């Protein structure tokens, strides 16, 4: 396996790929929101809309053998990583064709084939696990990266602190990706951190760190490539703060009392899809036809995902007690 190059090669094909991936997430999640109101999807649903550039950019730097640990806001990560839209949606339907057999739901997407270790709904809870996955790699001398995504809200948790220290102390190959969207539910960053420069906090553990415009997919990709190749080379952790924004409510229950419409609009202007599209068109890397193409492909993918989820089946109730422990040979 050859490592991804440490630099971005922004040719036409790659531009199209980046845009395609971002639009996949966007359209997929718009459909999810719709399905939620139809009660096809239940529980908590956290949309990633507005933050697509982060997952798309970072994933470019990862290889199949790398691992991913994400949060409850992980549809985008799973999609870009290669978990099929159909299996993700079937999961949200609670069907056994879902990527977690319907046991996990939106917040707990898992996929062994792509080393996608969830979907963790305890804020901060994924960080120690990611650290441990990297510890296994270090002990087995495998030059792999474990990418760990989390929100800026997680930074206040003790588990953040303990994980950062362990990863730095033991020099473990973790790519910590902080998706700083300025809010943890309704709590603004300056109400949760005495030091609001998150990447500066990372540096205090002696971890190489960088803050990047998380609304710019190329910037994210460039930073992630640099980070991942540093990790592969040194075995040490790296911290990437991606400054981004969620356009939608925290979950489907959130009346968004804590922020102005104007603020949301301002950020929407800077939207990662809008901005990249504009740039790519202007630069002549992409044409209107590409956009139409992408939208058509994505629309079909989403439609197929819905069909797949609809056609999915319910695991028999008799199986309730499965997957609590290993099935024992009689």
């Amino acid at each position: 396996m050859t490592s991804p190059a440490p630099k971005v090669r922004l040719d036409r094909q790659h531009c199209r790929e980046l845009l395609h991936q971002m639009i996949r997430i966007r359209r997929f999640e718009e459909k999810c929101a719709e399905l939620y109101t139809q009660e096809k999807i239940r529980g908590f649903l956290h949309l990633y809309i507005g933050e697509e550039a982060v997952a798309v950019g970072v994933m470019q730097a990862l290889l199949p053998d790398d691992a991913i640990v994400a949060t409850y806001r992980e549809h985008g990560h799973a999609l870009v990583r290669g978990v099929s839209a159909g299996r993700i949606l079937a999961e949200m339907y609670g069907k056994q064709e879902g990527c977690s057999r319907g046991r996990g739901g939106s917040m707990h997407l898992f996929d062994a084939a792509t080393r996608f270790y969830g979907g963790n709904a305890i804020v901060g809870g994924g960080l120690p696990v990611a650290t441990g996955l990297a510890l296994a790699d270090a002990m087995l001398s495998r030059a792999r990266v474990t990418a760990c995504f989390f929100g800026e809200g997680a930074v206040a948790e003790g588990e953040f602190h303990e994980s950062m220290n362990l990863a730095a102390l033991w020099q473990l190959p973790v790519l910590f990706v902080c998706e700083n969207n300025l809010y943890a539910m309704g709590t603004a960053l300056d109400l949760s951190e005495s030091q609001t420069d998150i990447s500066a906090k990372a540096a205090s553990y002696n971890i190489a760190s960088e803050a990047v415009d998380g609304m710019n997919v190329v910037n994210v990709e460039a930073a992630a490539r640099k980070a991942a190749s540093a990790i592969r080379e040194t075995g040490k952790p790296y911290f990437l703060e991606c400054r981004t924004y969620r356009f939608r409510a925290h979950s489907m229950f959130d009346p968004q009392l804590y922020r102005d419409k104007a603020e949301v609009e301002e950020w929407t202007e800077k939207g990662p899809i809008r901005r990249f599209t504009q740039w790519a068109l202007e630069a002549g890397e992409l044409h209107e036809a590409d956009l139409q193409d992408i939208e058509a492909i994505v629309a079909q993918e989403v439609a197929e995902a819905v069909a797949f989820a609809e056609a999915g089946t319910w695991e028999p109730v008799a199986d309730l007690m499965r997957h609590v422990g290993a099935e024992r040979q009689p």
Partner: protein
Amino acid sequence: MTLMSYREAARGAIRDAMQADSRVFLMGEDVGHYGGCYAVSKGLLEEFGPQRIRDTPLSESGFTGAGIGAAMGGMRPIVEIMTCNFSLLALDQIMNNAATIRHMSGGQFHVPLVIRLATGGGRQLGAQHSHSLEGWYAHIPGIRVLAPATVEDAAGMIAPSLADPDPVLIFENALLYNDTAEIEWPVAADIDHAAIRRHGTDISLITYGGSLGKSLAAAEQMAAEGISAEVLDLRVLRPLDDDAIMATIAKTRRCIIVDEGWRSGSISAEIMARVIEQGFWHLDAPLARLCSAEVPIPYAQHLEMAALPSVDGIIAAARTVLGR
């Protein structure tokens, strides 16, 4: 009489307490600007300001410990841990400090702290967000554990909890927040006793919190079949109201415990043990319990429903106990 929701009842009682005593304040994640994860504290930030309706960072151990310190320092904090699922992160502070400081200090210090936590499953939130830990917490000496199951108790338990000189944990089942009832305001509730919510003679359904509604519904359906079920709402999980438990059993001589906790090591086991210890082992029928299946709660609706106690399950269990 006022018609209000469980949510409004809790809010009203918190507001009253804050108006009555300037030492009372509420702190927790998203209690302020967001309006409370379950909207319990909606509007209180505007009314009381950010000092007393205090949004915290995501730091369950830190702010719970800060509640303990503030309580010892003369305040009367209400700490909201958004859900009991996250309270595991604060358990060291709860068990090793809140529950022990009075004892370790030989009675010199005490911790008049109220912790409110949402609890329970049934909303398709999956394994990490569907724990029912109130019965489990009831194992810990030095704390009081409450499970308000009615709109009245959602309001009425706040003031006596704040008046308690020791830590009180109030587990609010999240499915109850939309329940409504006509209640008299202000509400006076005690935090010592169980309450009979329905009188009956053939069998006792002993329950609490989110399972009270199911038990009452089951009792209603059974009535149609000519079975008279008494429903006892425990209300207080620690210390248990043994007298009330024994009284209902003495009356009906048959009993089912309905409990949303996982079966093994559940509070229903404790109740069964006490019934035996207190001499009721010559009942007319074995004690039985209906708990959650011993599985991390699955997301899929049909599986989740199968994992939790249900009205049908209660009726079936009752029939078995009654030999019908």
